[in-house]
């Protein structure tokens, strides 16, 4: 790694000033020049020079280096969400590439600093990651490489089972929670009564009925309290950390993996917005201020490469930048609000321009408050989909090919939102940690129309067993049947719930065993 050259430093200062002039607000950003090999290493390590030892970084590195060496892919830049931010430039790039990247980086850092979903990320992650590495190395020295690595593998298998929204929920104190609960209990089932008509209270809220209902609720709550956890727990990693029979070091390793998972979560939640925002600013600054005439072709070449969208690939750079531009132009022309929404005349809509001029203001507001899901939900319009030729594709079992399914706007939006919610991964919660009253773990998959991949599901279950060390189960839907798949340390069992319920009560059922 090396400091950037004098010439680049001059450009960096220039672009930094420019970016500030446009209203971007970023952390101090340290640029460093790295060779392609260092870049691949850094990328394999998720941007951090020091990570704990694990083979999957090596795998990532191999695929990145092969991709680079055979000319299939190239990483132009990397930027780390820390304060100060670190950005790596690739040695040997042309000056025009470096300029583009520097401008792009300032866009990213502005986003890291200002987007509300990043407010809870640890800005000293460099140090944290290094500490994680030291701790895990110490465990490896003490307990042996295989033991520690096997446990890490098991943890990584479920690293996505965290509650991405939990950092943003304001935690109330225990007392406040209790008081709120009491208040709700008291007022449960009471209908509001006007002050002038207080005499009707007895009729609107008959005391014996209220009493009866409250008793019923109390009974239900009693049952609920017997269950553990009381409420289904989305943060499966946290739950396992607290309640699985782990040794101290295992608990620490699980905590490390959970912490890193939470650190990366906002980047996944704002991929489209973040890349779109950085692309918006690099293209604005490059075309308006930075480039000279001789660089246009090279710039266009690189830019079109990053913005290309393949029929089956969804390019967050492209969709993001186009949406920001769309928003800017709509708010500049006043194409929003009640009147705009109610207008049905296409010609009027097309030439709609109130000269509102609110575009810039709006996109800055958007970059502060939204994440990908809300971004798409609010700003993806039918006009936009038609203009960009979006479609939904599905796998056709009969032809064995992916085919264009529809160009219907609501369906495109639905598909996109589905893909983005929980990163297109199944939502899984801890339902019961005392399943069958035998301390077995029951996970529940919130089925939303798509089955999980069965072989992966079973293999993951085996890994969960390694952590829970008692039989583990997951309730899901497969081929339109509700099933519970379990692993007891020896074999996989599968239980069909629908058939189970058809059986008369009291009769023992046999689990449909499959290994």
């Amino acid at each position, binding site marked *: 790694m090396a400091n950037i050259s004098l010439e680049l430093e001059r450009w960096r200062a220039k672009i930094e000033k420019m970016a500030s002039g446009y209203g971007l607000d970023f952390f101090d950003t340290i640029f460093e020049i790295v060779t392609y090999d260092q870049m691949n290493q850094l990328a394999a390590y998720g941007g951090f020079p020091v990570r704990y030892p694990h083979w999957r970084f090596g795998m990532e590195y191999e695929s990145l280096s092969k*991709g680079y060496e055979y000319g299939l892919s190239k990483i132009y830049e990397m930027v780390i969400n820390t304060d100060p931010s670190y950005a790596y430039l690739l040695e040997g790039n042309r000056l025009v590439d470096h300029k583009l990247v520097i401008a792009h980086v300032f866009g990213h850092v502005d986003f890291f600093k200002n987007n509300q979903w990043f407010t809870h990320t640890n800005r000293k992650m460099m140090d944290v990651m290094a500490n994680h590495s030291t701790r895990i190395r110490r465990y490896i020295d003490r307990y042996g490489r295989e033991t520690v690595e096997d446990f890490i593998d098991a943890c990584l298998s479920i690293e996505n089972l965290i509650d991405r929204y939990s950092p943003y929920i304001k935690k109330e104190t225990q007392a406040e929670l209790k008081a709120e609960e009491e208040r709700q209990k008291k007022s449960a089932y009471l209908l509001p009564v006007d002050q002038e008509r207080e005499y009707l209270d007895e009729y609107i809220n008959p005391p014996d009925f209220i009493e009866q209902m409250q008793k019923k609720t109390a009974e239900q709550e009693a049952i609920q309290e017997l269950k553990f956890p009381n409420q289904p727990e989305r943060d499966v990693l946290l739950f396992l950390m607290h309640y699985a029979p782990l040794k101290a070091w295992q608990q620490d390793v699980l905590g490390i993996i959970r912490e890193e998972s939470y650190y990366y979560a906002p980047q996944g939640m704002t991929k489209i917005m973040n890349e779109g925002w950085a692309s918006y600013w690099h293209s604005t600054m490059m075309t308006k201020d930075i480039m000279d005439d001789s660089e246009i072709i090279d710039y266009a070449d690189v830019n079109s490469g990053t913005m290309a969208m*393949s029929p089956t690939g969804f390019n967050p750079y492209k969709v993001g930048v186009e949406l920001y531009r769309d928003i800017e132009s709509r708010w500049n022309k006043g194409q929003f609000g009640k009147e705009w929404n109610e207008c049905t005349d296409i010609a009027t809509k097309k030439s709609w321009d109130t000269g509102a001029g609110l575009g810039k203001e709006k996109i800055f507001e958007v970059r502060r408050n939204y994440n990908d899901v809300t971004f798409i939900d609010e700003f993806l319009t039918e006009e936009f989909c038609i203009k960009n030729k979006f479609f939904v594709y599905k796998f056709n079992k009969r032809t064995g090919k992916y085919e264009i399914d529809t160009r219907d706007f609501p369906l495109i939006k639905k598909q996109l939102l589905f893909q983005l919610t929980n990163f297109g991964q199944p939502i899984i919660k801890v339902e019961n940690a005392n399943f069958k009253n035998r301390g077995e773990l029951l996970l529940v998959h919130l089925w939303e129309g798509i089955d999980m991949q069965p072989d992966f599901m079973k293999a993951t279950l085996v890994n969960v067993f390694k952590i829970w060390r008692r039989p583990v189960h997951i309730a899901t839907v497969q081929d339109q049947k509700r099933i519970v798949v379990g692993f007891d340390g020896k074999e996989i069992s599968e239980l069909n719930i629908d058939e189970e319920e058809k059986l008369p009560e009291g009769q023992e059922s046999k689990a449909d065993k499959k290994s």
Partner: protein
Amino acid sequence: MSIREDHNRFRDIIRGRIKRHFKEYVKHGEMIGKREDEYVKIPVPSIDLPRFKYGPKQRGGVGQGDGQEGEAVAGEPQDGTGEAGNQEGQHVLETEVSLEELAEILGEELELPRIQPKGTKLNVNKNKYSGLSPVGPDSLRHFKSSYKRALKRYIVSGAYDKNNPVIVPIRNDFRYRSFRTSAVPQANAVVIYMMDVSGSMGDEQKEIVRLESFWINTWLKKHYKGLETRFIIHDAAAREVDEDTFFKTSESGGTLISSAYRLCKDIIESEYPVNEWNIYPFHFSDGDNWSGEDTRLCMKILKDFMLPNSNMFGYGQVESKYGSGQFLKDLQREFPDDERLVISKIENRDKILDSIKDFLGKGK
């Protein structure tokens, strides 16, 4: 950074040296890809850690482009769209490797021993840039020594000024890289492929032979810089053909294996002196021979000429609907434990790698 450590660990897992239970997650893809000039396509290996995820075929996605509803879209969707940044490791990019690298992979995969060449080595002339000369083309100008000479001249003549260290070389200062030709001993090898092209060998059988011979060549090429290949086809009579014809010809009629062996013997005797060449005859057939008489003749040629004079003699029997497989049994009976004869049975495509291991596993 300690990526080397992690990378080696990953390579070890892929090769199955450690963590054997991981083998099931390793995606090797097809090892044998298309053969295009000198390159073969293979996917980069990766390991999918199991996790709860949606089945791929049920998912769809949003794409962009022209086309009517119901029209197929080009390309497989990438996995992991919209997932967290650098966390995923599911890039299945197809890349190209050179034959050299491929042989390396093959050797590692099958744990093949290195071949010890035998015989005197033939001398081959090689050019090596090793010296400097005062004349030569500008493209070979050796900057460093030219500069040094100029600098020396300046200092000796007292013209050197350390405050203004400008050196202007003159013609005499220039030195050019020059080469010397030397004779380098090189082990030479010839592979002679023989194949039965009688009616009972179908396309599938020939494809198997083609793949086998490709891998054998790849491995041998790694050890012998000057590798030659010869091809002989036979039914009732044998003839020498070029590679293309070898894999495309289909004849009908009887099978006299001895005809091929005799031709092979002729080629070796006339063109490849056995003390200078490493000789590898390979014969592929479905195991049918016309008569016991002919088989006896084959055994005699093998015993008297082939086995003493070649590094090894490979016989690969490809399973076919019509073949009786008798020849393999005859060979086993005749040469029960002769190291120089390697016999391999190839039931189907999946057994090709095993068979290559049979052939090359002895390091001959």
